[in-house]
Structures are given as structure tokens and as C-alpha cells.
């Protein structure tokens, strides 16, 4: 797999520059209100600014420079959070821009009739709409997404996929979809446009990476509710602290009530600003990661659902096994030598250009040292495979007729010529099937010579990936058209949990529905039109970009590379997204403990000096204590931006261990870090004589 979108380094000046400007622009309250936590901080910043002005012009509640310092750092808190979001968006935009270059307005040859060779008019691509038919000739750019209805051509899709090798697009079958912005290299295509302007694949992709159409995912909404509750609780704790403090001053008979500045500082320190500030960035970064993995998701919801998948349906061919079967042995019938059948099999396969045919030639050569002959030397006539006869073979110049094919096809063939099918081969056939192989029968005229054992070759490393999935708690299911015996053997060899043999669109659909009724979340990859119903039913459906339009419309993700195990990567990205949010929430809340120990003794220093025994960090002065807590609270956002953008590394392991590890890092870490951080900032403030 080649990657066109290289992992961008986290901080690039080209992105940071605009991000800084954007983080100021984002101070707009209309934008901030979407994020309740940061909105509260914004209100606090405005409020303390007001208090500062009051202190400047008249009687302030605290020294003006103290209020100014707090106020500035509150503004920084909002700006830092904006910066995180702007950074994530900037990284997305950089990719969107490179995609947009592809979407130049190209001229299109609109056909009057749906046929090659009819008259065409040159129109602008942007005027095309769904249902129009266009002609695209060598060198032309494909104006919009569509379906090939006539012709075959090689197409350069590197602009979208980053894959430089051209791909074949042809009418009918599973390779009929073309994408706007790609280019025809040779021959011609007649394409029916399948989308309206602004809705093309490219448009969706750009919208996605820019985050323009980003909607909150279900878990994000639930998390926002939780964060809002924490914000409200702390708002309550801080607001009521004012009357409590006034009463305490009254009853203690000395001291002054807590200042509004200190209350606002306490509030901002307590509400979950760390996660609140980084939440939008995490979501955008997740999308960005999908793009980097060359996957286009139609919604954030789909990415998130991917993290929850517990059943994975994979096509056997091309995914679990190498696309083609290989001959591994010749099994002669009674009275026939192995050399004889090997020779016959090789001759019959000389003109068979399929990989299976070639593997037979090679096996005969390697095992029995039978050199491949030239087909014209034998004066042979090749009989190609057809769906009706279900066999292929050669008629040689000397009158020999060799056929190879499926068991029942050959059986019918020899019987029609007056021969019989040797019973003893049946046991061989069964044992081949049991090991997941496919038997081919070779016959010369009415005599059955023996069997060719064709075997599915499991892709290297695939077993390990499935093992990894199992550790994530995901069940893998193989879908195949093979019979159950063969399917079971291959599934076992590949280390899969289950299989669906002799699959038809109906059985696939039913299987998915049954799984879902049992409460499972199903993911599936597919590319054919007959996969479309099952893909539409699956919770997470991934189509290859080469797939048919029907398949692509039924899915919520499109994989730009032809890499069926991409689902594993998608699941990881989905999980990472949730983990980053959860861990930063824990971190944010755990931070609060230390902030109480910093601010409460400072806030009540005049009313109840004894509370200074809670000042376990031994912060220098009440104002340095409050300021240090606020500064820590702001700069921790900056420190955590890389984590928010990169996400927390996910390693498959049982849930309990994963939770333990993350709790130790982000829970216990979140508890301890601010004690150290606040103390260091306090020492620095004192050393610089700032307080």
C-alpha cells in the first residue's frame, strides 16, 4: 500500500501560523457557545477583564495587577483551546486543499444518447447532473462520479488514492464505478453521472476533512452531557461559596470575603477545561487519521461505531486467501501413474492463462520434471472454460481429448462418452475438501485419470491479525461461496471464529440480522453489487473504491486502497478516538483535587488563617497560589495538544487490563501531575519576582 497522505509532523509552521490567527477568531461567543465548558471560561475572562478595569479606574476588590494576571491567563485558556481546534482543522484543511486542486472545472463531453458514437456537446462539468451521460476519451478527466455503461479503459486514480498504477474500469461487473477528478489514460468510457454537483465523492471527502459537516457522535454527545454536569456542579460549588464566605466573615468577625476574581479562577480551574478544550480537536483528528489511512468515512458516527464492532465479516477470496488457488498435488486414479496425470494436466493447462492453470503447469514441471511444451508444437486446440460446461481442456492433433473441471461436470462428460467415474476417487475428493482444498478432475476421453488438488493459500500474517482481533473482543467470520466442508477447513487454517458457507446475498443479510438481533455490532467489507444489501444492513460497512456504485452507496466508509484488512485499522482508529476522550476526561477531573488544595487555603487566608494547613504544596502567597493553579490549567491544554491529535496508542488486550493501564496513566497521573506542575509554576513566579 502506498500512502499519498504522509503522516504530517505535528507542528508545521504552515499550519501553526493560520491556527494562531484562527484561535483568536474563534473567540466569537457564537462559536464558543457550542462548547459549554469553554463558554464558561470565556464569560469568566470577560468578567475578570471588567473587574480589572474597575480596579484601574476606582476601587478594585484586589490589586489590579493580580486581577490582570488572572484575567490574561483565563483568556489564554480559551485561546489555547481554540488553538487546539484550529490545529486539528488546519491539518484537515491542508489535505482538503490538495484534494480541491483535483476538482478543477473540466469540460465534459455530454452525449445526446446513451450510446458510444452518438453526437456530443462540450459542456462544463459543473452543469452536469445526475442521469446525464458523458463520453470520456483517453486523456480526459472524469468530470463527476458515475457508472460506466459502455467501454473499457485504464484510469489513473492516483489523485484520489495515491496509487500510481492505473486501474481498469469497465461496464458491468464490480469495476464499473468511476470517481470524479480521476483521468482516463487509454481507450474510452461512456459514463452515466450518478451524483449531483456538490455531492460527489470528492466533495464529501473535502467536507469531511475540513470538518465542515462534522456532527457530534453519540458518545461525544453523552460525554458533553457529563462535562456539562461537572461544569454545573462546580458552578454551583463556586457560586454558593460567595454567601458561605460572607457568612463566615460575619461569624468569624474578621477577614474579607472571597474575591470574585478568586472565585472565577477557582471555577475555571475546576471545570473540565482540559477535555472541554481538546474535545473538538480529538474529533477532527480522528477524521484526519481516517484520511491518512486512505479511508473516507461518511460520518464521525461510523468511525465511532467501528470502535464498537464485535463481529467482522470478511470475504474469503482476496481477503483471507490469496485471490487464487494453487495446485499442490496430483492424485492418480487406479492404474494410472502420477506422471501420466501430471502430463495430461499440464497439457490441458498450457493455454489456461488463469493463475490456477499456470500453477498446474508449474507443479508438473517442478514435481515430475515435465517441461512445458509449446501449444502449437502439439497442434492442439484449446477448449476454454465456460459457465455452461464448467470444464476446460485441449483437443490434440493426435486425437487425444483432455478435459479438466469440476467433479460433476467431468462425471457427466465421461458418462456421456460411455465411461464411468471411479468410486475410489470419491474418498480422495472428500479428503481434499476436508482440508479446504478444491479437487479438479482430469479425464482423457472417457477415462478419468485422477485429481488435481487445488489449494487456497492463506495470506501471510493474516492469522496473527485475527488473533489480534480476538484479543480486542472481535469475532471474525469468513464469507465464502464454497461448500461448508471446504469453508470450515479454510476458516480453521486462517484462525477464524466462524464461517458462512455457500453464501448468497440473502444468507449474508440474514446472518447479519441474526447477529444484530443478538445485540452484536457487525462490520463488513464488500465491493460487489450483490454485497450491497448486506453492506446496507451492517453497522459498519466498508467498500473498496473499486467497488460498484451500488456497493459504495450502501456503505459508510470507502477504502481507497484495495486492502480488505483495513477494517482492523479502522476499528483501532475508532477505539483510539474514544480512549483519548475518556482518558483526558479522567485526567481533567483528577486534576481538580490539587487545585482545591491550592486555591481554598488562599481564598480564605484572611477569614480562617488556620486553613493554611491545607496548603500542602507550600505555595508562596495566596495570590501566587491562585495564579499558579490558573496558569497550570491553561498550559496543560497546550501540552496535551499532541496527545489529542495523535490519540492514545491502542494495543489489543483484555478490557480490564486496558482500563487498568489507562487509569494508572491518566487517573493517577492526573492526580499527581498538577501538584508538581503548580508547585513548579509557583516557584518560577517567585523566582521571577512576579508575585
Amino acid at each position, binding site marked *: 500500500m502506498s500512502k499519498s497522505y504522509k503522516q504530517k509532523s505535528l507542528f508545521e509552521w504552515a499550519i501553526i501560523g493560520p491556527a494562531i490567527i484562527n484561535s483568536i477568531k474563534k473567540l466569537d461567543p457564537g462559536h464558543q457557545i457550542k462548547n459549554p465548558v469553554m463558554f464558561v471560561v470565556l464569560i469568566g475572562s470577560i468578567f475578570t477583564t471588567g473587574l480589572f478595569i474597575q480596579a484601574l479606574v476606582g476601587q478594585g476588590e484586589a490589586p489590579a495587577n493580580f486581577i490582570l494576571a488572572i484575567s490574561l491567563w483565563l483568556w489564554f485558556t480559551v485561546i489555547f483551546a481554540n488553538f487546539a481546534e484550529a490545529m486539528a482543522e488546519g491539518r484537515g484543511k491542508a489535505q482538503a486543499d490538495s484534494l480541491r486542486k483535483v476538482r478543477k472545472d473540466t469540460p465534459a463531453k455530454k452525449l445526446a444518447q446513451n450510446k458510444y458514437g452518438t453526437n456530443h456537446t462540450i459542456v462544463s462539468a459543473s452543469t452536469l447532473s445526475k442521469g446525464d451521460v458523458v463520453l470520456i476519451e483517453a486523456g480526459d478527466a472524469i468530470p463527476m462520479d458515475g457508472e460506466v455503461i459502455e467501454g473499457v479503459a485504464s484510469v489513473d486514480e492516483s489523485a484520489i488514492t495515491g496509487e500510481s498504477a492505473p486501474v481498469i474500469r469497465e461496464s458491468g461487473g464490480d469495476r464499473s464505478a468511476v470517481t470524479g477528478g480521476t483521468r482516463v489514460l487509454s481507450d474510452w468510457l461512456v459514463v452515466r453521472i450518478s451524483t449531483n454537483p456538490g455531492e460527489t465523492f470528492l466533495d464529501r471527502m473535502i467536507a469531511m476533512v475540513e470538518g465542515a459537516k462534522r456532527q457530534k457522535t*453519540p*458518545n461525544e*454527545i*453523552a*460525554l458533553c*452531557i*457529563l462535562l*456539562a*454536569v461537572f461544569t454545573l*456542579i*462546580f458552578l*454551583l*460549588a*463556586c457560586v*454558593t*461559596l460567595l*454567601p*458561605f*464566605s*460572607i457568612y463566615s466573615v460575619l*461569624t*468569624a468577625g474578621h477577614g474579607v470575603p472571597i474575591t470574585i476574581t478568586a472565585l472565577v479562577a477557582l471555577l475555571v480551574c*475546576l471545570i473540565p477545561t482540559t477535555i472541554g478544550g481538546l474535545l473538538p480537536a480529538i474529533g477532527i483528528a480522528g477524521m484526519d487519521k481516517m484520511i491518512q489511512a486512505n479511508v473516507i468515512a461518511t460520518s464521525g458516527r461510523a468511525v465511532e461505531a467501528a*470502535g*464498537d464492532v*464485535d463481529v467482522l465479516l470478511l470475504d474469503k477470496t482476496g481477503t483471507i486467501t490469496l485471490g487464487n488457488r494453487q495446485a499442490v498435488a496430483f492424485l492418480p486414479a487406479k492404474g494410472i501413474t502420477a506422471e501420466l496425470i501430471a502430463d495430461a494436466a499440464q497439457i490441458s493447462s498450457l493455454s489456461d492463462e488463469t493463475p490456477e492453470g499456470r500453477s498446474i503447469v508449474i507443479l508438473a514441471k517442478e514435481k515430475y520434471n515435465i517441461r512445458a511444451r509449446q501449444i502449437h508444437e502439439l497442434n492442439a486446440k484449446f477448449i476454454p472454460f465456460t459457465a455452461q460446461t464448467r470444464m476446460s481442456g485441449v483437443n490434440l492433433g493426435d486425437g487425444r481429448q483432455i478435459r479438466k473441471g469440476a467433479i460433476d461436470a467431468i462425471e457427466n462428460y465421461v458418462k456421456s462418452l460411455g465411461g464411468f467415474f471411479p468410486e475410489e476417487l470419491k474418498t480422495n475428493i472428500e479428503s481434499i475438501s476436508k482440508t479446504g482444498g478444491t479437487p479438479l478432475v482430469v479425464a482423457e476421453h472417457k477415462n478419468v485419470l485422477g485429481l488435481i488438488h487445488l489449494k487456497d493459500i492463506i495470506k501471510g500474517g493474516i492469522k496473527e491479525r485475527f488473533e489480534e482481533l480476538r484479543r*480486542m*473482543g*472481535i469475532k471474525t467470520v469468513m464469507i465464502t461461496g464454497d461448500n461448508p466442508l471446504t469453508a470450515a477447513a479454510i476458516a480453521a487454517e486462517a484462525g477464524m471464529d466462524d464461517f458462512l458457507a455457500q453464501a448468497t446475498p440473502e444468507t449474508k443479510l440474514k446472518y447479519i440480522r441474526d447477529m444484530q438481533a*443478538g*445485540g*452484536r455490532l457487525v462490520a463488513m467489507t464488500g465491493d460487489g453489487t450483490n454485497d450491497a444489501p448486506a453492506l446496507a444492513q451492517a453497522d459498519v460497512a466498508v467498500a473498496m473504491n473499486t467497488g460498484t456504485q451500488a456497493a459504495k452507496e450502501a456503505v459508510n466508509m470507502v477504502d481507497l486502497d484495495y486492502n480488505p484488512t483495513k477494517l482492523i485499522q479502522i476499528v483501532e482508529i475508532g*477505539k483510539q*478516538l*474514544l*480512549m483519548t*476522550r*475518556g*482518558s483526558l*476526561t*479522567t485526567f481533567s477531573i483528577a486534576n*481538580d*483535587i490539587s487545585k*482545591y488544595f491550592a486555591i*481554598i487555603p488562599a481564598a*480564605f487566608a484572611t477569614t*480562617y488563617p*488556620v*486553613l493554611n*494547613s*491545607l496548603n500542602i504544596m507550600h505555595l508562596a502567597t495566596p495570590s501566587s497560589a491562585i495564579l499558579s493553579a490558573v496558569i497550570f490549567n491553561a498550559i496543560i491544554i497546550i501540552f496535551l495538544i499532541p496527545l489529542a491529535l495523535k490519540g492514545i496508542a*491502542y494495543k489489543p488486550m*483484555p*478490557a*480490564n487490563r*486496558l*482500563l487498568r493501564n*489507562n*487509569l494508572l496513566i*491518566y487517573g493517577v497521573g492526573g492526580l499527581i501531575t498538577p501538584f508538581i506542575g503548580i508547585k513548579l509554576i509557583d516557584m518560577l513566579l517567585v523566582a521571577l519576582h512576579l508575585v
Partner: protein
Amino acid sequence: MNINNVIQSLLFLAVLIISIKPLGIYMAYIYEGKPIGINVWLVPIEKWLYRISGVDSETEMPWKEYAIAMMIFNIIGIFIVFLLQRIQAFLPLNPMNMPNVPEDLSFNTAVSFATNTNWQSYGGETTLSYFTQMIGLTVQNFVSAATGMALILPLIRGFMQKQKETIGNFWVDLTRSVLYVLLPLAIVFALVLISCGVIQTFRPSIKTSLLQITKNEKGDIISEQTIALGPAASQIAIKQLGTNGGGFFNVNSAHPFENPDALTNFLELIAILLIPAALCYSFGYMVGDVRQGMALLAVMLIIFIPCLLGSVYFEQKGNPVFKNFNIDQQATNLQPGGNMEGKEARFGIVNSSIWAVSTTAASNGSINSMHDSHTPMSGLIQMWLMQIGEVIFGGVGSGLYGMISFAIVAVFISGLMIGRTPEYLGKKIESYEMKMASIMILIPPILVLGGTAIAVVLPEAKAAILNHGPHGFSEVLYAFSSAGNNNGSAFAGLGVNTFFYNISLGIAMFCARYFLAIPILAIAGSLSKKKIIPVSQGTLPTYTPLFVTFLTMIVIIVGALTFFPALALGPIVEHLMM
């Protein structure tokens, strides 16, 4: 702490823990409708009750209907208790000729008993007739507890059921809770208490001469005392068992007729926590995995035991100020030592501390010592146990569903941390559940902090504070912590029988009960409609020590973060100033 302290605490815990399983299984059988003796024998009565009240016991209700039935039943209950107090002078069983109770006090008491709070602004023996106590309060003691149990059952069904709209029948759940669980236990317990000397009589109070004649503040000679009597045992049994806590007499279980000796004290102590603890077992049993219930119980015990030992420790340590006066506070064979102010000599330090912690951990609210006189740290423990939402045992039923709402939050955060949409007992926790659980977590702090803030600002409310300094603040904070979490115990030192406190605490109690009850039914309804996700390697087990630790941390941190500033200005500063 001395050996005696430790042995008594351990004995209490041991007996409590042993009784959890049998009662837990018993209740599970009752609620699952499996035959277990009594629910076979009494079935005619149950059927008869449905028939005369026109209840269709076979039809299950969707959550909204269930909630409406629960609310109607409770509001009628409030109205009846209100009315009984307002007209008690005209009703029978009033040998002391108690006058009708004022409106604000009647309102407060009616809400208090219907909501299972049992905050008492009144003094039992000086305000209420026997009729009001028995027909009004004792009945509410039963049905408010049964309401709590009827609220946890739909939630359990919500976890068990698959894609079902209905969550059970409120009337059936209520009836079975009273008939098969609360009544049998209360009858047996009342008889035991009577045999130990708790009174049960309709005779009026008796007047006797004082052994030692004294003078009152005005200098008048006092030679006679009134000894209040009444049908106490029948109310005390359910008051302890149903986490009610409203004493028959003003001083509650410190009164010798309510709690005569060490044995009754021990039994009443066990009764405080018995049903809330056993319900954890029932929960696990009914959801098909006892470990799930035990995990919640473990969280409760992990928080409860240090609180208990802490309270005993601080009480036994005594008052540091006394050291300056050379007062001996050491425990010896001749004296219990420690802080004996406000404690009954027959109970001593340990039994008073265990009671204080148990009654505030569970939302019982009965007392056998004056909480106002406990050391500030012990007072802090009591307040905080209420403030964390009465989830450490808590009220019958309500404690468990409160804990489950915390578990939902814990599951949500931990679910995110392992990268999976959170699920609890096979049910997905989504934004609707989070919304409802959030309301449940948010309401008590609003009531406690908001109420306290108003009370320390309003002049008429401030006038009721009898102590100065942080202790006075603690008294107000305690009152709202108690009402805002349906506990019902009081710190005293606060003249609460005033219009402001009667109404504001009444409103707090109402909101604390029903604004949490309705969301939990909504959660039950929503969970019930969901599929059950089968357990896989990726499922986070919610019974492991790790999850128990995490849930404990969530409860502690949410509680501590919310109330730390308020507590700092009350008990913490008082402690530091001593």
C-alpha cells in the same frame, strides 16, 4: 482507639455481613415470584388487596405510567398525613389532647415521611396524637420504604429484559414489598423490641415526682416530670428497617423507651443497614450474576468502614481543647473516655459512633446520640456520607439506585477509556441514560448548596442559627444535606421549626426524592427497550476489584469535589481551630 472499640465495630460488621445473603435471596425470591413460604400462604390476601382496590395485577406498565402511579400514590400519602395533623384534635387516640399542628409544620412532616426522609421539625411526644403517629407516620414508614423498593425493581428488570416496553406493575411491586418483606420483618422485630422493654401502649403520659427537685431558668421550683408513653415499638421497628428514622419520641433512639439497652441498640443498628445491604445481593441475584451486586456492596463497604473507624477514632480521641483544662479523656475501667458530650452513657463512644455513621450512610436519620456534639471530624463524616447522595447503603431501594446511577457514570468513563461504547450488564449506556444519571447526580448538590446559601443570607433563616463560628455554619449545612438527600437526621443547634426551614426543607425533601425517582424510572424504561449485548473479550467486567476501585473513586471524587469548599468552611476549619 482501643481494643474494645475495634471488637465492637468488627462484631457489628460481621453480623451485618452474615445477614445479607439470606435476606438478599429471600427478597429476590419474593420479587421474582418464586414460592418461598410466605408468598404462598398470603397469596389470598395479596389477591384480595388487588380486587378491592381494582388493580389489574397482570398488566405491566411502561415507565411513564409506572412513574405516574408512583407519584399519585405518594402525593395522596402526603395529603393524608398533612390532613391528619391538621385535624388530629378531632380524631380518636389523642389522650394528651394534642392540638392541631400548624400548616407549615404539617407540610414539612407530611413530605418528610412520604419521602422516606423523616426529618422531624416537631417533637413527637409534644406535638402528635397516637392516631397521627400510627395511621399517619407509621403507615408512611412502610409505604415510603416500599416505594423505594418499587423503584429499584423496574431498574433490575430494565437490565434483564430485552426490547420490552413495560417495566412492571407499581401496585404489585408496592404490595409485595409491604406484605412479604417489610411487614413480616417489622412484626418480628417489634415483638423482639417489646420483649426487651420498648414500650407499646395507648396509655397517656404519666406524671411522677422528681427524685431531685430542681429549678428552671426563671427560678421556679420543678418537682414533677412527665413521662411520655405511646405505641412506640410498632413504629420503631419499621423506622429502623425501612431507613425512615423518625423517632416516636423527640430524642429518637437516645430515649430509653425507644432503645433501652445495649441489645436493643445492637439490633436497631443492624436493622438500619440490613435491607439496603441485602438489596445489593438481591440485585446481583436477580440480574443473574451475584458478583455484580457484591461489587456495589463492596464499594459501599470500602467507603463505609473507614468512615466508621474514623468516627470512632475521633470520638475516642476526645476534645483537644479539654487537654488545656487537665481533663482526663483516657478510656479506663472506670470511664469510657473520649468525647462523651451528647452521648448516652449506656451506649458509649463506639455504639454512638457506629450509629451516627450508619444512620447517615443509610438514609435512616434516627439517632442515639446528639450529632451536634460529635467532634468536627465525626460531624464531617456524617455530613459527607449524606452529601455523596446517600449511596453508601442509602435508603431502602433509593441507595441502590443512587449507586447504580454512579455506576452508570463510572461505566461511561471507563467504557470510553477502553475505546468502546460503554455498556453496563449488557445494556448500552448512551446519551439518554447519561442525561438521566446526570440529573440524579446534580439534584442533591443543588438542594444542599443552594439551600445552605439561601439560609446563610436570609436574616430570618440566620436568626435560627444558635451557634456562632463555623459550627453554626455546619448546622445549616447539615440540615440541608440531610433534607436534600432524604436522610432526616439533624445536627440540632438550629431552630428548624420556623416557617422558612419547614417550607424550604420540605421542598428540598420533595425534590430530592421524586426528581431522582422519575429519572431512574426513565433509565429503567430506556434500558428495557435495548438489546442485551453478549459478553466478549472486549466487554469491561463490572465486578472486578479494578472496577470497584474506579467506582469508589468516582463516588468519592464527585462528592469531595462538590462539597470540599463548604466543608472547609464548616467542620474542617472548626477542627483546625480546636
